[in-house]
């Protein structure tokens, strides 16, 4: 069993990453590995470079130095076809959903499938309807325009679009930001259910403890320009560091963790 784990390449491998905006270091010699099937939450104070790190993992930003490998392959180089094929293996859920405002919900989800140019419209219709039902939306919602959707629905449609190409890796930027506690709970439940069902590896950026406690198998704490601690929620809470203490042991956090049954560790 142990040898099997050793031989699998991590889904995300970040090595020696350094980023600088002007004179300010965002990341300094940051290392992180995420194994297949894990749900990793990336937490950190605001401005600590969480979203920047996520954008680098998906190739929207370039680090100043260091390497990022997805499925054991570098993000860039090797020609357009290889780069595109690699990008089809992961889906991204942006903070605001980033739905194409000129398309309706159906066309938004169908877009990546149509871009493949390998399916006819009937098959695309079936696939889109399946995705809609996966994110608990109804076929009639397909005709709505993004401007007509509520915040929670936007996230669901964006999730359906991110899942359209059957990715192995899903990256979520603040999946529950801007949702009321009720919707945020049901969205988290949806992500967890789909994650288990589809065997996804998930990396999410969050500062919502409810989300973190409910979703993640592991937590990575980004502070002082590097991954300060990486482990299960219980392990992280044992770490003695001002940021971590502040983050997990404030009154509000304890309440959130109690709800999820983790407070026994405290």
């Amino acid at each position, binding site marked *: 069993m142990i040898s099997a784990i050793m031989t699998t390449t991590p889904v995300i491998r970040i090595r020696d990453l350094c980023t600088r905006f002007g004179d300010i270091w965002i990341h300094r010699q940051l290392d992180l590995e995420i194994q297949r099937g894990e749900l990793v939450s990336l937490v950190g104070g605001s401005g600590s470079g969480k979203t920047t790190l996520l954008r680098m993992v998906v190739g929207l930003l370039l680090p100043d130095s260091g390497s990022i490998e997805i499925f054991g392959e570098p993000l860039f180089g090797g020609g357009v076809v290889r780069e595109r094929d690699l990008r089809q293996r992961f889906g991204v859920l942006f903070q605001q959903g980033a739905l194409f405002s*000129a398309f309706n919900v159906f066309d938004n989800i169908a877009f990546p499938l149509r871009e493949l140019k390998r*399916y006819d419209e*009937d*098959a695309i219709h*079936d696939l889109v309807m*399946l995705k809609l039902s996966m994110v608990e939306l109804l*076929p009639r919602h397909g005709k709505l325009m993004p401007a007509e959707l509520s915040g929670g629905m936007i996230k669901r449609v964006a999730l359906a679009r991110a899942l359209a190409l*059957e990715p192995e890796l899903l990256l979520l930027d603040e999946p529950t930001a801007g949702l009321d506690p009720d919707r945020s709970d049901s969205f988290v439940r949806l992500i967890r259910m789909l994650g288990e069902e589809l065997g996804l590896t998930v990396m999410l950026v969050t500062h919502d403890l409810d989300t973190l406690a409910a979703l993640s198998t592991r937590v990575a704490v980004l502070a002082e320009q590097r991954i300060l601690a990486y482990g299960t929620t219980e392990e992280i809470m044992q770490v003695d560091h001002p940021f971590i203490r502040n983050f997990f042991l404030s009154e509000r956090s304890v309440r959130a963790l109690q709800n999820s049954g983790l407070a026994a560790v405290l």
Partner: protein
Amino acid sequence: MSIARIEVIVREGGRHVRLSGRWTLATTSQRAAGLADELSRIADPASSWDCLELEAIDSAGAILLWRAWGRALPLQLSIRPEHWRIFERIDTADHEPRAAMVPISPLRGAMIIGTAVIGIGRHLIDFVALVGQFGLNLAHVVRYPADLPRREISANLYKSGVRAMPVTALVGFLIGVVLSYLSALQLKQFGADIFIVNIIGLGLVRELGPVLVAILVAGRSGSAMTAQLGVMRVTEEIDALATMGVPQGLRLVFPKVVALTIVMPLLVLWATAIALIGGMLSAQLQLDISYGFFFQTLPRVVPASNLWIGLVKGTVFGMFVALIACHFGLRVRPNTESLSSNTTASVVSAITVVIVIDAVFAIATRHIGLPL
């Protein structure tokens, strides 16, 4: 990665189909059509399906099978429980009520025309309301001068006036040169060289200067104003202003219209002057007409009333370009398509309206300023 495989064993009582390998989007999409054909050939109600050897299946692979099975589970199917879930999902999705199709009405043609007419009517009503609002704002500012949005007006003067000077100068100069050059070629043939001053002077001061600048400004500042208001609507900035009790008419529309109304005649003056210099240069090179002669003759053959007509035209054009830009900017719906179509509509309408107004001016002022 192992590919999707199909094995068929023919037995008495029907075919036995064994599926194995990975049935995922990555492995099946390349040959989706081929697999679909193969599956539909072997799928008949008597076949039994063995999916126990499947390594992985996702919705793309499952849909492929589902379609081959005629959108229902086959009677004889053996499948692993973890793969069963996806077919359950497809089954649920298939049985959800379809979105109702809107039937095409026999009166569709009439409806399209009707919608278009109502649409034009709405535009007119909205535009009249916008002009009315502008009038009310003007009255308000006259009564309460402290409410005059000075900063905004000044910013707009700079953006649509000062920043437009280089491009209007360049275009004006080139038009002056070209007009003068082409006229000179014709005039030479008749020996009517000195009339070059009349042609260039009248043409530029009365007609080309104002229209040219109006078209440039419509493309430059009009589109910018529409896009700005449009994005402010998309990002809810206009709503934010409204909740702070800042009237959008006074703060967003009024300064744009006032600024463009003030700045347009100045731009017309500037562009016309540069165009005349271009024409003068070209006339000197082509026809040997000296600068001194040009300067002396110009006021004689082009009465000052022409300049006034040009400036008044510029003022009116400026006001309309800004009003039209604001009109379309405030109509933008929060999506990219609406933003692009409204910006296009804004520029096209502004240029069309400028030319229509120009024609009206041409008729109304036909007895003024022509020395004949």
